[in-house]
C-alpha cells in the first residue's frame, strides 16, 4: 500500500501531516505510530501535536525551528514509522444509565431503527469503540465502531442544553458530551463519570484507547456519581486485546 505522508502549512506556526483521507483504523494506527515517534524524538521548538482521524498537526515556534528543518526531521521519522511497536491500548469502561430522563431519545432511536429500547442498549453496549481523537470540547471523544443498526440523524433543531455525561448518537457516530453545552445529538443515556473535570483538570480518555459502555441502573448511577464527587471512584481500565474488537459485528 502506498501510504500517504503529505505535509502542508496550517498557518505560520502549525504543520499538518496527512496520513490518509478516510476514517479507517489502519490509517489511525499510523497516526498513533507517528505520535509515538514524536514523543521519543522531542524536537526543539515543537510545543504539541493534535492527532485526528487521519492526520497529525504539529504546533511549532518558527523563531526556534524553520519549516524546512521541521519537514526534514519529519521525513526522517517517516522512514521509521513501520518499525514502531505500538504502545498497548486501554479499554475504559463507561457506566451508562440508558433511557428515562437521562436518555430521552432512547425510544426515538429504537423506533427509527425498528428495534426495541432493550435491543438498542444491548447493541450499543456490546462494541469496543476506538477513540480516534478528542476535540469539539475538552475531553470529548470521537468514537468509531457504532453499529450501523443504531445510526440515527440528529435533531432538526439542537437542544439548548445537554447535560455533561450525556451519551448520544448522530448519524453513524456515537459520543459523550464532556461539558454541558447545546447539542443536536440523540441522547440515549448518561454516564456519571467526568470526561473532563474542571475542579482538578484531568481527562479520562485519550486517542488510541477504547471505550466500552456498561449499562447500569438509576440507583447504580447515583452511587457512582456520589463516589465520583467524593473522589472515591476508580474508572475500570483493562488492556485491549485485538480479538476484543472482533466480537462487535
Amino acid at each position, binding site marked *: 500500500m502506498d501510504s500517504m505522508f503529505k505535509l*502542508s*502549512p*496550517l*498557518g*505560520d*506556526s*502549525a504543520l*499538518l501531516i*496527512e496520513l490518509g*483521507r*478516510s*476514517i479507517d483504523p489502519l490509517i489511525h494506527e499510523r497516526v498513533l505510530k507517528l505520535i509515538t515517534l514524536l514523543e521519543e524524538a522531542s524536537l526543539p521548538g515543537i*510545543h*504539541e*501535536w*493534535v*492527532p*485526528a*482521524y*487521519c*492526520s497529525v*498537526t504539529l*504546533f511549532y515556534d*518558527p*523563531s526556534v525551528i*524553520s*519549516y524546512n528543518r521541521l519537514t526534514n526531521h519529519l521525513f526522517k521519522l517517516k522512514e521509521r514509522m513501520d518499525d514502531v511497536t505500538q504502545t498497548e491500548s486501554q479499554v475504559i469502561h463507561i457506566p451508562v444509565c440508558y433511557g428515562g430522563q437521562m436518555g430521552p431519545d432512547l425510544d426515538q432511536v429504537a423506533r427509527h431503527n425498528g428495534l426495541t429500547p432493550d435491543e438498542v442498549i444491548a447493541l450499543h453496549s456490546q462494541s469496543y469503540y476506538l477513540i480516534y*481523537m*478528542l*476535540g*469539539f*470540547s*475538552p*475531553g*470529548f471523544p*470521537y468514537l468509531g465502531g457504532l453499529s450501523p443498526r443504531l445510526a440515527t440523524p440528529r435533531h432538526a433543531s439542537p437542544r439548548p442544553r445537554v447535560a455533561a455525561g450525556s451519551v448520544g448518537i448522530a448519524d453513524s457516530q456515537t459520543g459523550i458530551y*464532556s*461539558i454541558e*453545552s447545546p447539542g443536536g445529538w440523540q441522547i440515549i443515556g448518561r454516564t456519571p463519570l467526568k470526561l*473532563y473535570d*474542571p475542579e482538578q*483538570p484531568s*481527562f479520562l480518555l*485519550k*486517542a488510541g484507547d477504547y471505550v466500552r459502555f456498561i449499562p447500569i441502573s438509576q440507583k447504580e448511577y447515583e452511587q457512582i456519581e456520589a463516589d465520583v464527587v467524593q473522589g472515591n471512584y476508580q474508572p475500570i481500565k483493562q488492556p485491549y486485546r485485538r480479538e476484543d474488537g472482533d466480537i462487535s459485528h
Partner: protein
Amino acid sequence: MGYPLFEVLSPGLLTTVQDLGRPGFQQYGLSVSGAMDPLALQVANLLVGNPRHEAGLEITLKGPRLHLLHDALLAIGGADLSAKLNDQPIAPWQSFFAQKGDVLSFGPVQKGVRAYLAVYGGFDVPPVMNSKSTYLLGKIGGFKGRALKKGDVLYGYKPLKRKKARRRLAPEHIPHYSDHPLIRITWGPEKEAFTKSSLHQFLTHSFQVSPDANRMGYRLSGPTLVHQEGQTGIISSAVTRGTIQVPPDGKPIILMADSQTTGGYPRLAVVITVDLPALAQLAPGHSLSFKAVDLDEAHRLYKAQERFLRQLSLVSTPL
C-alpha cells in the same frame, strides 16, 4: 504571599484574567485560550517590569470599575477605553502609579476593543495546567474560571515595596488600530476546495465582522464563498487560532483564542500570527480585507515581532 489588590465595583462587559494561554493540552480537546491580543498584553507587562508572559486583565469594550486596595504600579495596553484614575485620564501604553483608595474606571471606546491591564508583580490566581488564562467554556483558570463579577477581590502576587521607574512605549511603536484593517493570511490546506472565483472574491472584497463574534471566533458577513462540488466538509482535523474555516453556508469563520481544537469545515486560510492583534481589536460592524502572503514572509514578520519584544524586555528589565 498574595495581597488584596482590587475590589471589583462593577465588572464591565467581559473582564477576564489572561496570560499567553495554555498550550500542551489541545490533543485532549482543550482550547489554548490566552489574551486575544498577545502583543498588547506583553507590552503592558514590560511597561510595569513584569515578564512578558505574566497574566493581566483583558477588558472588553465596556471597562470595569476597580477599587485599589493597595498601592500599585499599573499599565494599560491595547484598546483606548478612556481609562481614568479617580478623575485623571490615563493614557494607554505607559505605566502609572495608583494608591490605595483610588478608583480605576473606564469610559467610552476611543479605539480598539480589548485593553490589557498589567500590574507590577502580577495577579495571584492559581495556575491551572501551567496557565492563569480564563477558559470560559471549560470553566477553568483565571479568577474561578469565570469573568469578574461585582464584589470580587482580586489578589496581587508581589506588592510594590518601593517606587519603580515609570515607562512608556515609544510613540513609533504604538499600534494604530484600524476599523478596516488589511489582514494577511497564508493559504490553508483546503484552498483547492473552493471555486476560483471565490478565491478571487476572498482577496478582493471586504468582509464585515458579524454580531456573532467573541473569544471563540468571528463569523464574517460579505460575499458568499462557494465550495467545489462535494467539498463542503472534511474529516475532522486540527484547527488553530487564526484559521479561517468556511461552513456550507459560505460565510467564513475566523477562529480566535478560545476556539475548538478540531473542526470539520474546509480550512481556506490562516491569519498570520502578527496580524492576530489587529483582528482582536475589531468589533462587530467593522470591516476587513485579506491579503495572501507566503510562509517565508509570515515567518519573517513573526521573527521581527519576537525580536522587538525581546529588545523591549532588555530595556525594561528593572535594575
